């Protein structure tokens, strides 16, 4: 069973299914997760296998989805609550930031909150402004919640398993554009393939420039790296995988080698992933810096419906390659 390629959607489905088989306390809840088989087909077949007790369709009640998961987790269950898309998790931001992320702290360790929020994220396909967010950094702003954002099938599989088994709340985002993307799965599937929370990964080695990215940004960074290699520039691609905690040691060690950095993200540029990484680099790696740090992100604008201007607003591999050429 080694090396088979499966779509990221299927990798996530398997991780969730295996964890539900493994631990009776794990259950899923969310809009259309049961009878409709999941808006993104991640919970396909779950109702048949696990029944209504463990696969719970909710009304369109995000505030309650966010908060019910907290209560159930405090009381001893391990909820995996799905937001159909991350846009709707804004309605639950209070439950996520103030309760999932803080009850342990404000009761000084009396409770734990072992839950996972899953949310499909990302821009594109003319989904229009209110359905076109990639706001992982907003959720990563708050201490108390971990944030995981996989870029491929294998990572998604291992990261989700870890998230479900961890005793802290995790917001787990799934790039809509990556759902159909095939990728290899671990050889030891069905056992304990776990990716530690906060552990990043080098997706490509190179010595000329460090590209720091997560989720879909990793795709753009890898594409740009291939293009740059043809022009004699070797880019190293660091996939942080988790926005909280951040594996900055991995970024620093790469930067010490390359002395140049471009940060790539799907989200908006202000108060962003890019801002955070750039700030930390200049603070801790000043002596190694040979060029300004560049950021490639979406344009600072709500996303329009019309397709050509939508593409103007979005980052892509070419924009990454162009940014690299400005500093090498």
């Amino acid at each position, binding site marked *: 069973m080694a090396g088979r390629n499966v779509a990221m959607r299927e990798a996530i489905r398997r991780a969730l299914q295996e964890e539900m088989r493994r631990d009776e306390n794990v259950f899923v809840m969310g809009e259309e997760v049961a*009878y409709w088989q999941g808006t993104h087909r991640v919970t396909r077949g779950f109702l048949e296998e696990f029944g209504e007790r463990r696969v719970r369709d909710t*009304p369109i009640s995000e505030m309650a989805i966010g908060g019910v998961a907290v209560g159930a987790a405090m009381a001893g269950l391990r909820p995996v609550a799905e937001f159909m898309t991350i846009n709707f998790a804004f309605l639950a931001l209070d439950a996520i930031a103030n309760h999932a992320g803080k009850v342990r702290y404000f009761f000084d360790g009396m409770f734990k909150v072992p839950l996972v929020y899953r949310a499909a994220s990302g821009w594109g*396909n003319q989904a229009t402004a209110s359905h076109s967010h990639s706001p992982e950094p907003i959720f990563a702003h708050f201490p108390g919640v971990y944030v995981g954002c996989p870029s491929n099938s294998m990572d998604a599989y291992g990261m989700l398993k870890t998230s479900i088994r961890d005793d802290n709340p995790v917001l787990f985002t799934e790039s809509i554009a990556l759902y159909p993307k095939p990728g290899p799965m671990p050889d030891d599937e069905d056992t304990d393939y776990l990716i530690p929370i906060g552990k990043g990964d080098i997706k490509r080695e190179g010595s000329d420039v460090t590209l720091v990215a997560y989720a879909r940004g990793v795709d753009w960074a890898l594409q740009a790296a291939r293009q740059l290699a043809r022009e004699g520039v070797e880019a190293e691609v660091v996939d942080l995988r988790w926005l909280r905690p951040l594996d900055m040691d991995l970024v620093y060690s790469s930067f010490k080698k390359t002395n140049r950095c471009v940060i790539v993200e799907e989200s908006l*540029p202000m108060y962003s992933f890019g801002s955070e990484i750039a700030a930390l680099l200049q603070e801790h790696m000043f002596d190694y810096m040979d060029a300004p740090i560049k950021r490639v992100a979406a344009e600072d604008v709500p996303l329009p*419906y019309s*397709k050509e201007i939508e593409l103007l607003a979005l980052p892509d591999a070419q924009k990454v390659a162009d940014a690299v050429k400005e500093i090498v």
Partner: protein
Amino acid sequence: MASPSKDMLLDWYRQMVLIREFEETCHRLYEEKRITGVYMHLYSGHEASGIGSMAALRPSDHVITAYRDHGIALILGMDPGAVMAEMMGKKTGSSGGKGGSMHLASAEHNFWGGYAIVGGHLPLAAGIALEARYRGSDDVTMTYVGDGATNNGYFHESLNMSSIWDLPVVWIIENNGYGMGTEVNRASGQIELHRKAEAYGIKSFGRVNAQDALEVYAVATQAVDYARKHGPAVVEHVTYRYRGHGVSDKQYDSREDMSAELREWMDCREPIKILRDQILKKHTGVKAVLAAHEEDAKRIVKGAVEFAEASELPTTYQELFQNTYVHSKMVHKTDMSVGAGID
């Protein structure tokens, strides 16, 4: 009971066949990829709900709805060409191509728009009605809301506030049986949805068979009158969506029970047929008018498609950034300056 004139009835028929033709054309264009995108929610099957209720309004009243907004836009008299151009993201679209199917609006028609976050438009509706109450006007805000949205916090907070402040809102709950794939009784503890509003002290006008435009109109006139004089009112419209939740919903292709249910609604409660029969029963010598409306609908929608397809797409950074703020005279690409067009 208010009895609509012959001219009114014929005009409803005109609107109804226009909406149906428009929606079915949108569906076909989407299948042919001449309309792109991921979200488009059609009003086919819902026509009588919008037509009968909006017939009770006067031009100074307000209308707001969710993403299932094409029919509402057409009833209010928005230009089908501009609406179709919006589907295609064209510059000539009613929202300049920025909004698409889910975000039609027309300031000129007091149509405050279609909104894509479930329940998100409900507090806006209360705010629009607050403006009227604040200035002492008796204009009402007719607000369409889906059955699924009644389970969202926005609904409860907005209705309660409309009640304590006596806001002139007519809450029309369009109960089409489903929120996406979830039947009403699996999502709502109270399945008579108008009673949820009643719980906040809002005057309920009960449940209406919303495939019958006449019945819808009769109740809407009372509800509108009540809202003008006193405060919020609610009506529950029982209806059905012919094209599923949205254009990507393929349930009706794969589920026999769903397609049987759909057939039953189309065969026994078809709003166009119901209205047609009512007109023909009451008035003679109108067959030619009905036929002319049917022909006109085809011609108008065909013209709308031609107009939309001949129009240009927005392509520039200027167009991308325009209207992020009121004073966006400048366009800044983020690699030059972070922060969109603030002067």
